[in-house]
């Protein structure tokens, strides 16, 4: 058996059968020269396979989310942002300057009917200041109410005209037509939100395209399930959508995936926050909970991941830096 070394000159290459399709490239954010005011933009998508299946794997774009009003902010997040929680602009600045998020998501939670409606003027003011003080691309998140979503996104879209923000989100039950119209008129992208169902996702994407969007103006947010709350559904829906897109026969599913809801949701899982001596340090657990959720979404194929706990984002970024090294 001493002669085994002589075989070693050959390098083993994994056989490759390239998929016929690929994920569409979508550009987020617009520079000054492109009609916006962002200092940086990102192109997501373009991949032909799953992460780590081929030699090149791009890490995901990691965003942090702020709320325009501090409603139900998880304790873990509060510990990091402290007083800034009361001022969405200060909170946003921390996310970008201190915690190095690549994209900022702002959720207009105050417009949700169950929290009493904040005046549109306040929302406008907040967004104007954020556009002025923050230079990364933005995801504008509606409150998640069928009656309010379109109205709020329409307002926000107008103020951020030309910035190529992601309007989040069009759903099968809200006024998606109005959202698409606002995106087209003001040069934005649209997130198409469904819950773990490839058929519904396809149907929604097709409807958005019928309203005039092209596939490179859409990102998909197909799940809200986090670790401990059905992460397996998230993994499987993303893998199914990716496979359908890569096999090339579902053009309407070739949009990149932006997980906007799942990672922040991880902080609501009981085990992520509970102070129970039997479960060890809640701080370590909480950070890990969100970074493992986000990492799972990425491994399955998500291109953009919105997170909530700055420490989890930092952990994940460090992990992607170290993963390349010994």
């Amino acid at each position, binding site marked *: 058996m001493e002669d085994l070394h002589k075989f070693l000159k050959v390098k*083993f290459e*994994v056989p490759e059968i390239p998929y016929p399709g690929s994920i569409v490239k979508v550009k987020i954010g617009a520079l000054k020269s492109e009609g916006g005011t962002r200092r940086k933009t990102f192109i997501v998508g373009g991949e032909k396979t799953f992460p780590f299946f081929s030699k090149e794997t791009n890490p995901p774009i990691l965003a942090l989310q702020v709320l325009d009003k501090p409603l139900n902010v998880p304790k873990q997040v509060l510990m990091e942002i402290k007083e800034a929680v009361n001022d969405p602009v200060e909170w946003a600045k921390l996310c970008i300057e201190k915690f190095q998020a690549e994209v900022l998501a702002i959720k207009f939670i105050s417009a949700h009917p169950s929290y009493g409606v904040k005046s549109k003027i306040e929302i406008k003011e907040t967004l104007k200041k954020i556009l002025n003080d923050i230079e990364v691309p933005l995801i504008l998140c509606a409150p998640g109410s069928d009656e309010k979503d379109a109205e709020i996104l329409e307002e926000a879209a107008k103020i951020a005209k030309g910035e190529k923000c992601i309007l989040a989100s069009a759903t099968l039950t809200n006024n998606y037509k109005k959202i698409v119209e606002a995106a087209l008129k003001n040069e934005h992208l649209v997130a198409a939100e469904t819950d773990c169902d490839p058929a519904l996702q396809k149907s929604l994407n097709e409807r958005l395209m019928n309203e005039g969007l092209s596939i490179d103006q859409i990102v998909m947010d197909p799940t809200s399930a986090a670790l401990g709350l059905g*992460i*397996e559904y998230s993994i*499987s829906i993303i893998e199914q959508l990716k496979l359908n897109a890569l096999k090339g026969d579902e053009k309407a599913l070739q949009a990149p995936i932006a997980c906007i809801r799942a990672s922040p949701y991880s902080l609501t899982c009981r*085990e992520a926050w509970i102070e129970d001596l039997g*479960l060890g*340090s809640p701080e370590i657990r909480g950070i890990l909970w969100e970074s493992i959720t986000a990492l*799972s979404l990425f*491994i399955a194929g998500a291109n953009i991941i919105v997170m909530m706990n700055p420490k989890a984002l930092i952990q994940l970024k460090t992990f992607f830096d170290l993963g390349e090294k010994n």
Partner: protein
Amino acid sequence: MSKPSPIMVYNLLPKKNCGECKVPTCMAFALKLIEGEAEFEECPYLTEEQKIKLSALISPPIKAVSFGKRKLIVGGERVLYRHELRFFHPTIFSININDSLSEEKIKEKALYIKNFKIERAGEKFLIDSITVTSESGDCEKFRKAVRIIKETSDLPLILYSLNPKVIQAGVDEIADEKPILCSAKIDTLKSFIEISKRYSCPLTLESSDLNELKIMAEKANGLEVLLNPGAPSIKPFNLLSNVIAIRRCGIEFKIKEFSHPILAALNFIAKEAWMEALLASMLIIRYASILILNLMSIENLLPLFILRESVYSNPRVPATVSPGLYEIGKPNENSPVILTTNYALTYYLVTGDLENAGINCYVLIFDSQGMSVLNALAGGLLSSEAIKKLIQESKIEEKVSHRKLVIPGGIAKLKWEIEEATGWEVIVGPEESSGLPSFLKREGLC
């Protein structure tokens, strides 16, 4: 994924429909075999020839390997993506103990691992295995460490050393317990194969070079083999790429040498606990059958246990919790009573939202067979009679002095029916569980 047709499998069965395999007909048994839900050994009437043919037809592309006294099975996988069928044998967490520790410390660690237990909604999470690593390189020290661990716990063991003499000393201590031998490199392969044959133990082959691994697997043909595609100095993401490449070669390209379960020794690769946990989570989703970990603390292991349980759950069977009465916080006789289904996601959402808001209450979990509220209603499972029975069996009437039941908004139309059947006042709650805490407060129920 290519599956054989049921008729091809059926034709190799005795067609007696005797039911001795506990499946009523041979056709139904054939379907189960194809789905990997039954083993052909369960049929007592197969000839050797039929067995060989069946095995070629339905054996999983990734071989199964068993180890330890209790014959823990790893591998036996059939698909790259869980939605295509399911993943079968959950990733084993094997916690590492170095032989250079003092005897007391070794015993203490082994005891901690043995007694480790976390419970979640009736589910128990236990550590599956212990790895003994020779740090000293000393045969006697290794032998002693193995002995102490064997005397402390009966968990299946993995013996780790690159020196075959050390492994020989260790395996000699537990000759009849089928530990996994870890790891042969190309220069020590011959001696390792001899030991593996002598003691009938599974052998791990180690190299970060896939070509080298393939040559070694060819030589180890006929043994129970595991592949460890990362030497201690490998970059974490290269390890991940190797693991994925091996599994794709095994399943997509049917390359025989790569059709073995994969072992990854993260204890050597990750420098810090959080990093080990993140790397482990990627490898749970992507194909590792065994992870050797340094991690011991609950806050690091709990998310990994939950991720593993999720990834290895059967996508065709909805996750459920046991029906019955659950307490949130410290409820008393005035606390509200909330009804929902036993679909695990519903349960975690509802109880999580209530707990998060610090509400003390009772939750009555209805047996919807894992369906969500709306599906259970549509499927006729959620009826006033069934709720009456649940109220009686749970003895909730002995725990609270009021008779007010909060039901999910989605089943509002059952309000009158339930009131008539149970005599309870029914309060229609919100459709989303996130609205529940504020609803209870608004209604003055807590």
